[in-house]
């Protein structure tokens, strides 16, 4: 039995494949309406006001009992800072990217770190480190394939993901987009690491077999993710890789990126993917919607099922839905703790 750990120690131990006192419970996006209202956050200010952002994210840790504190609240910061059009959503709808570039040369990232939303991420990380030194302060970042998709448009990414496998010229084009995305990824990662982030959480939503060819993922996605991942390690940061949808066909590739842990959705069978991933920790995969309308029994069952399947931390299959309720989040955290008592 391991002596009681802080949240930060627990998450780091899991990522470093060491014993834990109980399985960590971690999360991706955390724009939860109830917590925004409870902490007096105001839309859309909480997207660019570090105090507000950290207060909302902090409640996930202090109130719900989740082991990490995650910011920012959506996958739009990079695009916004590059000058793409972003619709800010609502208090319960995350912002979305509404335009894209025609050519990689159009992307200008000289002043990336000057953008107010990027700055806010950096300030929020610093503030969170100050306020919650015991939690794993996590930056929620857009991974290279998805960022390339935001730059060229998601549908174009999908189409190019098959064309690049057929024609050398299209492959060159694809590589150019991904190279630009990686440059931006590195600038942002370095700033987050300097600000003191414990963990960089990369969502590569659009690298999913639901949107692009699995062969493309193996040919381009894996090496791109590995490149940014190695860069994170050089900066002294651990990193986590999430890909949406049914990732069973690509989990082997995900495991070869060097990610410190892999996060998967409820569409995959935990038992199956933990076998393929070998010693790379896999986390997940409780249906996010259960945090909105799940019964206690459903939440407990799914949490245990994932842990029984070999998950090294409990996480929702994807982002925390804005309409999640604090009582359900607590039920989930308790379910993971109870499982740990019985099984660790």
């Amino acid at each position, binding site marked *: 039995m391991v002596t009681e750990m802080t949240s930060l120690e627990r998450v780091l131990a899991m990522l470093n494949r060491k014993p834990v006192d109980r399985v960590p419970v971690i999360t991706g996006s955390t724009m939860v309406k109830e917590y925004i209202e409870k902490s007096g956050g105001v839309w859309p200010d909480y997207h660019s006001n570090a105090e507000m952002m950290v207060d909302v994210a902090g409640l996930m840790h202090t109130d719900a009992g989740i082991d990490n504190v995650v910011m920012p609240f959506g996958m739009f910061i990079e695009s916004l800072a590059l000058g793409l059009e972003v619709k800010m959503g609502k208090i*319960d709808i995350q912002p979305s990217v*509404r335009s894209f570039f025609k050519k990689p040369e159009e992307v200008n990232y000289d002043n990336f770190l000057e953008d107010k939303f990027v700055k806010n991420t950096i300030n929020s990380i610093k503030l969170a480190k100050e306020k919650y030194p015991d939690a794993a302060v996590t930056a929620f970042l857009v991974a290279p394939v998805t960022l390339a998709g935001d730059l060229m448009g998601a549908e174009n990414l999908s*189409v190019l993901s*098959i*064309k690049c496998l057929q024609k050398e010229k299209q492959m060159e084009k694809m590589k150019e987009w991904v190279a630009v995305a990686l440059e931006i990824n590195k600038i942002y990662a370095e700033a987050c690491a300097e600000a003191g982030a414990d963990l960089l959480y990369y969502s590569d939503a659009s690298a999913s077999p639901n*949107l692009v060819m699995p062969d493309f993922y193996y040919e381009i996605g894996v090496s791109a993710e590995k490149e940014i991942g190695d860069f994170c390690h050089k900066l002294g940061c651990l990193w986590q890789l999430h890909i949406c949808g049914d990732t069973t066909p690509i989990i082997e590739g995900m495991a070869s990126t060097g990610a410190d842990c892999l996060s998967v959705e409820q569409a995959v069978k935990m038992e199956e993917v933990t076998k393929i991933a070998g010693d790379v920790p896999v986390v997940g995969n409780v249906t996010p*919607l259960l945090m909105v309308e799940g019964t206690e029994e459903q939440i407990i069952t799914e949490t245990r099922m994932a842990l029984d399947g070999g998950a090294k931390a409990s996480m929702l299959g994807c982002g925390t839905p804005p309409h999640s309720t604090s009582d359900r989040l607590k039920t989930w955290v308790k379910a993971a703790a109870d499982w740990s008592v019985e099984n660790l």
Partner: protein
Amino acid sequence: MDNLPEEVQELMEALDEAAEDEDEDLVEELAQKLLDTGVDMKPVALEKLALLVMDGEEEMSVGWTRAALKFGLDPFEILLKGLAEGMGLIGKKYENGEAFVPQLLIASTAMYSGMEIIAPFMKQDENSCTKPATVVIGTVEGDVHDIGKSLVKTLLSANGFNCVDLGNDVPSTQFIEAAKENRATAVSMSTLMTTTMAEMPKVVKMLENEGLRDKVMVMVGGAPITTQYAAEIGADVSPHDAASAATWLKGAIFDFPSETERWG
């Protein structure tokens, strides 16, 4: 196609290449030569077109559509038994987990580019053909995900439906207005986010309030939408993907009152 005379096969390969290079004149010339062989090229061209669309071969689909016209095929036949047939083939594969979304997308591009070639010839036939049923289609307000919605549209078009595409982030009132304006047969709503699912019952309620609910069928879909949810909100159906949406609607219109019966 394999048992065609060698001479024909060679000409067809040459036509493939000419089409790939977008050499219109050469395509015409080779099509003429194929006609001159005396072989009935009509069924060959239809089969060829279906396979090209299935494989997402845009340029070749265009070239072979031109050739098909030269062979004297009726534009509607080219559409339904060639281009749309190919879209259906890849749709089936996708349904069975044998194909991926990018394949659907390039197939849809191939189909549409072929359709552009025959469009000018189809106009003249408009009166002689029964008017296709209209589907008002869009992604609900608050949601920008529209790739799936566009695929539904593609497969509906491939099955002869006329689609009025409202795009994404569509306010509920716009669905209602478009349905009225176009005397729609069906309204098709998509969403990929749990947060925007509630827009769907809103539209169904508005249809009811305006006395329009019996005039249109309502299809809802997208990753989080289940059959059970569709039933709960009073929609008619939620086929699980774009291909089955088209199949379902094609069947359902048989039992549905005609446009004049519904809209007067």
